């Protein structure tokens, strides 16, 4: 065991090395493998073709989220291709002995909402999923990252992956968030600062007084978008907030096992004197609500800011990319985005579909009506979130305001399931990507927090929630 001071990332790595041979990437053990219907069918087929079993079905769990309709789950699924994919997931999980939370399960939900809420996500774990937003689970001090379908097959068959170690990139956020400014604004500000490739080959460790003060759900929002900063993963060292969240959940350790787990978890935080490959400090006091104007998540500005002007950019490709983005978005440079008319508001996705996100949106919509020109979708992250929202009467607040409150799933975040923008429509969306066509062919996305999204739903234009 090394006596050098180590970062939390290095500690988790060291704990999971199965073999490390020269000239070959290390073989790393995976503690939890989350599966969904979109990125696994070809991996199960590989297992069938090669006569292999799933090595640890007891460390593998599946749900359905990406291609699932958000209309009531007892209705027939009209999309035959999507239905075939869901049926294949049922068959694969049955054939290989994997626990599945299907559409009839009250635990079904977006894989990155379901895992933490069931207590599956725990500090110090290695967690993978065929989904780039797996970093969400890093909020618990786990090393969690997205993998491709070939790797899904490798983990199913061996419970391992071949990996190169990552550099640790410290992102310190210090100070107090002002009213109306949220975790989503922190991560959008980080990405705007470092760019969408800024974290390549790194794992972000989010640290500092602001992060320490955040709830688990807020930490999940931040870790979720680590990939949008180009990082392999992002995490927050566990603390009492983490332990309190996990305690008592279905898959959390109990009794003596809890005490032993807690003792292990408390060893995880980065040692005094450990070195980071890169560091960035952000002042939370001066942050404003953030909103993106362009076609990647790094193209973000404070709500009071102006859309940047390509005339001020010297790099020719960067300049042409900005021109291309503004053309796609049909926006003029040098003017505020605030006040721009919108057609749709989407509150949902693995970034912002948890109960606190729904409470935030409801706090704005309560007693108000959404602008009649705006279609508003509120999509809870899981059946459990939906149930909780209904218990608190949030569903009534949304419906009375004129918003649509739907079944759990990824929905309009990636528009695979029929929930989508029409060509040319503008949306304020609490999701994580504003790529061209991401929310529907020809659709245009402004990424923002649930507060900003709800405020914009009321006014019908991009709105500073602090002005309501």
């Amino acid at each position, binding site marked *: 065991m090394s006596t050098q001071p180590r970062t939390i990332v290095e500690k988790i790595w060291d704990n999971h090395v*199965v*073999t490390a041979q020269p*000239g070959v*990437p290390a*073989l790393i*053990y995976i503690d939890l493998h989350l599966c969904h219907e*979109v990125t696994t069918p*070809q991996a199960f*087929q590989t297992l069938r073709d*090669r*006569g*292999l079993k799933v090595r640890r079905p*007891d*460390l593998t*769990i599946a749900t359905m989220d990406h*291609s699932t309709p958000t209309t009531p789950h007892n209705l027939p699924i009209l*999309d035959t*291709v999507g239905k*075939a*994919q869901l049926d294949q997931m049922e068959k694969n999980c049955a054939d290989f002995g994997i*626990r599945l939370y299907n559409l009839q399960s009250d635990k079904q939900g977006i894989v990155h909402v379901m895992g933490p809420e069931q207590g*599956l996500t*725990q500090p110090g774990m290695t967690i993978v999923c065929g*989904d*780039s937003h797996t970093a969400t689970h890093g909020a618990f001090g786990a090393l969690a990252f*997205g*993998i*491709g*379908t*070939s*790797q899904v097959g*490798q983990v199913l*068959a*061996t419970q391992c992956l*071949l990996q*190169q170690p990552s550099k640790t990139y410290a992102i310190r956020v210090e100070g107090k968030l002002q009213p109306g400014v949220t975790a989503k604004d922190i991560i959008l500000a980080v990405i705007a600062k470092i760019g969408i*490739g800024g974290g*390549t*080959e790194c794992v972000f460790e989010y640290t500092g007084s602001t992060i320490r003060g955040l709830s688990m759900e807020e930490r999940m929002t931040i870790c979720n978008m680590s*990939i949008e900063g*180009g990082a*392999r993963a992002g995490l927050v060292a566990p603390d009492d907030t983490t332990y309190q969240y996990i305690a008592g959940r279905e898959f959390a350790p109990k009794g003596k096992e809890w005490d*032993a*787990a807690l003792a*292990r978890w408390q060893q995880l935080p980065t040692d005094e004197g450990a070195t980071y490959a890169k560091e960035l400090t952000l002042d939370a006091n001066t942050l404003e609500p953030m909103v993106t104007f362009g076609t*990647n998540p790094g193209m973000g500005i404070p709500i009071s800011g102006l859309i940047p002007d390509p005339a001020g950019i010297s790099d020719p*490709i960067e300049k*042409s*990319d900005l021109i*291309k983005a503004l053309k796609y978005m049909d926006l003029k440079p040098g003017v505020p985005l605030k006040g721009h008319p919108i057609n749709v508001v989407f509150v949902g996705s693995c970034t912002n579909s948890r109960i606190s996100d729904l409470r935030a949106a409801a706090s704005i919509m309560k007693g108000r009506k959404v602008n009649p020109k705006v279609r508003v979708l509120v999509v809870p992250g899981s059946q459990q979130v939906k149930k909780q929202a209904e218990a608190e009467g949030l569903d009534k607040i949304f419906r009375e305001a004129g918003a649509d409150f739907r079944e759990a799933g990824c929905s309009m975040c*990636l*528009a*695979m399931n029929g929930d989508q923008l029409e*060509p040319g429509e503008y949306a304020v969306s609490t999701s994580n*990507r504003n*790529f061209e*066509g*991401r929310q529907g*062919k*020809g659709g245009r996305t402004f990424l923002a927090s649930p507060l900003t999204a709800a405020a914009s739903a009321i006014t019908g234009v991009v709105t500073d929630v602090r002005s309501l």
Partner: protein
Amino acid sequence: MKTDTQEKTATKLVTKTVTIESKTVALPIENIDTDQIIPARFLKTTSMEGLGDNLFLDWRYLPDGSPNPDFALNKPSAKGAEILIAGDNFGCGSSREHAPWALKQYGFKAIISTSFADIFKGNALKNGLLPIIMPPDIHAELLKWPGIVLKIDLATQTVTLAGGRTVEFPIDPFAKQCLIEGVDELGYMLNQQPAIAAYEAKRAGTVNTLA
């Protein structure tokens, strides 16, 4: 002693990728994300087939369904190009392996950029699609002169430019070995099963199970 299963799984499955000689086609755009490479609505498939037809679909076709004459891949001169030159941070966004599947099925064997998103790079290598990093000055030249013929040699890790100049590129040594020898990673990993079992025994009691 190897079991029958291990022998079977160590079968060489990956097509050997050693040299590529082809003209290029250029997309001088930074941060080309996987939603552009293959839009999400095509991820409902349960196979790997048919993705090449939908590569860059929303850029390749106009709203009326006709090919976009301004898109580089639609120019007659791009026909048959096996090397794509693209801007920085190619393949950012989602982890979908459908992106390299689509690029390969369309006919590309190598992508040249100044940088690649991590997950895309790994996915590409697992499918014999070479992600080749060139220094910014060479990359800028290649973007300027689409259509020139390049020779890529994986064994020597070099790109030979028009005029005979060669430029080296980095590649993960294990991925290179797998590609040249045609050995697939899963076969290699299955042969590590004794070490995996030993690790599991050592960690017993500290790995939570869903049981």
